[in-house]
């Protein structure tokens, strides 16, 4: 399988994004209580701490991180890796929208979740669309 060129900006973007996803996964898997208390996203508003569920979500972040790094190394993996990552980020954003609309999260989460949930979902969708168009 062909490898990415060292000057390929997609390789660097996916590589760094993948590493950060892996770092978040490692934090969730290794220290779920610390992640729950310290992530600056008011996680306790979503409900009581559950180490098992934090590790479950950490597993999803590990999968995305690995896929994105594969996309950084092998261009053929780029669109599938971005697509599955976009799917998670969008579904995650929908959960936040429905929970906030239903009152399960306080209205302050419209602002709290903007940088960490809504904006990344929009950017990953846009990147997936651009990658799919340029890969043809």
């Amino acid at each position, binding site marked *: 399988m062909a490898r990415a060129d*060292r*000057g*390929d*900006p*997609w*390789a*660097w*973007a*996916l*590589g*760094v*994004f*993948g*590493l*950060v*996803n892996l770092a*978040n996964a490692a934090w969730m898997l290794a220290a779920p*209580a*610390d992640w*729950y*208390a*310290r*992530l*600056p*996203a*008011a*996680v*306790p*508003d979503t*409900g*009581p*701490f559950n180490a098992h569920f934090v590790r479950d979500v950490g597993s999803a972040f590990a999968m995305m991180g690995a896929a994105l790094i594969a996309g950084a190394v092998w261009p053929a993996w780029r669109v599938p890796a971005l697509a599955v990552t976009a799917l998670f980020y969008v579904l995650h954003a929908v959960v936040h929208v429905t929970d906030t609309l239903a009152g*399960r*999260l*306080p209205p*302050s*989460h419209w*602002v*709290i979740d*903007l*940088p*960490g*949930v809504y*904006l*990344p979902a929009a*950017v*990953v969708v846009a*990147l997936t669309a651009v990658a799919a168009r340029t890969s043809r």
Partner: protein
Amino acid sequence: MSTLLRVALGLLVGLVLGTLPFVHFRHGAGRHDAAPGDLHATHTH
């Protein structure tokens, strides 16, 4: 575009996108502000 510029652009996109969830962006507190070690915070309707 030079290789250096393309690499910088890629790094910037990856870093910004990756670190957004860790940005402290709270102007109004939620229902509960957890302190480290306060692991059983619940909704307070």
